[in-house]
C-alpha cells in the first residue's frame, strides 16, 4: 500500500469521504476560533452545556418532522439560542455566575430532550442524535455547514475587537459607550450555531470536540489570540483528515475517530508544546542576561 492509496485515494474514490472532509474542514474553520475564545474566557465547559442544550430542540423537531435535516437544525438552533439567552439574562440580572446559570438552563433542556425522545423514538434515533454520522453528510447538509462556517467567521471578525475589550476590561467598554453585553450574547449565539452545525457530523455529545480540543492544544503553541486561532484551525483540520482516514481504514466510527485524534494533538501539546508545557517546565532553557 503506497502513501497515495492510504492517504488520498479514499477521498478521490468516494464522494462521501470528500463531503465528510469538506464538512469537517468547514467545522474546524468556523468552530476553532470560537473555541479559542471559549478557552480564553474560561468558558470551555459552558460550550459543553450548550451542546447538551440543543438536544431537546433537535428531538422535538424529530418528533414532528422525522429525520428532516432542516427541521432538526432549526430546532437545535432555537433551543441553543434560548438556553444561551436565558442563561445570559440570569447572569446579568442576578448574582449567579455564568457557569451556574448555564448549568441550570442546560440540565432542564437536556432532561426535556431525553424525555421527548424516549416517549416517541427508539434507541437507534437517539444514537444518531447523540453521536451523529459524518460519513452520511449529503450535499444539503454540506451547504448548511459551510454557510454556517462562513457566517460565523464573518460575524466573529466584526465583533473581534469588541469581544476582546469587553472580556479584558468590561468597565472600559461601558465607559466608552460600547455594548459589551450584546456582543457577548452574539458570541454565545455563534457558539450555538456552530454546535448545531457540528451535531449532525459528530453528534451533540461530541460537537464540542472540534471546537475546544484544537483550541486548548493551540494554547501551548502561541501567546497571542490570533496565533492561537491559527494553530487551532490547523489542528482541527489535521485531526479531521487523520480521523477520517482512520475511520475509513479501520472501520472505526468517524466522530470519535476525529475527536480522539484531536485529543492526541492536545495530549502531545500538553507534554511537548512550546509555551507552558510539561517539557518546558522540566527542561528549562538557560535564562537571558537581561
Amino acid at each position, binding site marked *: 500500500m503506497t502513501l497515495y492509496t492510504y492517504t488520498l485515494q479514499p477521498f478521490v474514490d468516494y464522494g462521501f469521504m470528500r463531503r465528510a472532509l469538506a464538512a469537517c474542514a468547514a467545522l474546524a474553520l468556523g468552530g476553532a476560533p470560537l473555541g479559542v475564545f471559549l478557552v*480564553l474566557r474560561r468558558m470551555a465547559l459552558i460550550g459543553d452545556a450548550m451542546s447538551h442544550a440543543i438536544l431537546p430542540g433537535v428531538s422535538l423537531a424529530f418528533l414532528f418532522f422525522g429525520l428532516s435535516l432542516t427541521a432538526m437544525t432549526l430546532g437545535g438552533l432555537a433551543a441553543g439560542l434560548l438556553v444561551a439567552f436565558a442563561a445570559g439574562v440570569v447572569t446579568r440580572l442576578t448574582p449567579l455566575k455564568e457557569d451556574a446559570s448555564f448549568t441550570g438552563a442546560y440540565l432542564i433542556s437536556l432532561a426535556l430532550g431525553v424525555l421527548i425522545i424516549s416517549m416517541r423514538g427508539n434507541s437507534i434515533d437517539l444514537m444518531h442524535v447523540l453521536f451523529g454520522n459524518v460519513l452520511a453528510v449529503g450535499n444539503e447538509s454540506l451547504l448548511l455547514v459551510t454557510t454556517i462556517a462562513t457566517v460565523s467567521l464573518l460575524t466573529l471578525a*466584526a*465583533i473581534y*475587537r*469588541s469581544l*476582546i*475589550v469587553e*472580556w*479584558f*476590561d468590561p*468597565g*472600559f467598554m*461601558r*465607559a*466608552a*459607550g*460600547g455594548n459589551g453585553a450584546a456582543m457577548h450574547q452574539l458570541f454565545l449565539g455563534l457558539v450555538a450555531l456552530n454546535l448545531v452545525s457540528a451535531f449532525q457530523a459528530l453528534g451533540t455529545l461530541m460537537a464540542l470536540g472540534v471546537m475546544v480540543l484544537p483550541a486548548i492544544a493551540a494554547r501551548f503553541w*502561541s*501567546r*497571542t*489570540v490570533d496565533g*492561537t486561532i491559527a494553530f487551532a484551525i490547523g489542528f482541527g483540520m489535521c485531526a479531521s483528515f487523520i480521523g477520517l482516514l482512520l475511520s475509513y481504514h479501520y472501520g472505526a466510527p468517524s466522530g470519535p475517530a476525529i475527536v480522539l485524534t484531536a485529543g492526541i494533538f492536545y495530549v502531545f501539546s500538553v507534554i511537548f508544546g512550546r509555551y507552558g508545557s510539561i517539557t518546558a517546565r522540566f527542561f528549562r532553557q538557560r535564562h537571558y542576561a537581561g
Partner: protein
Amino acid sequence: MTVILDNVTISYNRHPAVHHVSGRFESGSLTAITGPNGAGKSTLLKGIAGILSPDEGHIRIEGAKRLAYLPQAAELQRDFPMSVLHMIATGYWHKSGALGAITPAMKEQASQALADVGLSGFEKRDISSLSAGQFQRALFARLLLQDALLMLLDEPFAAIDADATEYLLAIIERWHQEKRTVICVLHDLDQIRKHFPECLLLARECIGWGSSNKILSPEYLMNTHLFRQGWNAGTELCERAG
C-alpha cells in the same frame, strides 16, 4: 465637562454604599475623593462612569460626553494573551470603534505614550509579563490615548513606586492645565494637599467637599470616624428625601 450629583444614592442589595450625595465637579476641576475603606469612593466613580446606576437621584454630565475610567487593576484580566501595544491601543476606541484601523501614526503616538509613563520599548511585551506597577503605568498610557475630557481614576498609584508616582502626578497636572476634568480616588492625604486643589471627603455620605486644605483638617476628618464599616442586618428603611 461638569458632573452634577443630585441626591445620589447607589446601593448593593438595598444597602447604600453612597448615600444622598449632592454636589458638582466643575468643568476643568481637579478633585480627589478620599475616605475610609468601604466609604463608597469606587462606587461613586463607577456611578459617574455609567457602570452602576443610582437607586435614587441623578448623575448628570454636562458637555461632550467623552470620559475615561481607570479601574482598580484587580478588576482586569491580567493573564489575557495580549501585547502591551494592543492593550493600550484599545484607548483609541473613540476613534477606531469596533472595526476601524489602527494607523501607523496612532502606533507611533502609542509608543510615545508608553515613553511618557516610563515604559519605552515595552510595545511587544505580553501584558501578563508586567509587574503590578508596570501594568498600572500601561493603563495610564491607555488613558493618554483616550484623550478624554473627564478622567475618572480609581487609586491610580496603588503598587506604583515613588519615582513613577511623581511623573504620573505630573501627567495629571498637565491634564488639569489642559482644562480636563479629573476625579481621582486617593488615600494619601499629603499627596492630595500637595497636588489636588479640590477634595471630596466621603464616608458613605458627603462629609465635606471643597478646597483640600479646608476639607483635610481635623474637624472634618474626625467626622469620618462616625462612619460605621458594616451595615446592620435589621436596619430600617431610609425615609430621607432629597
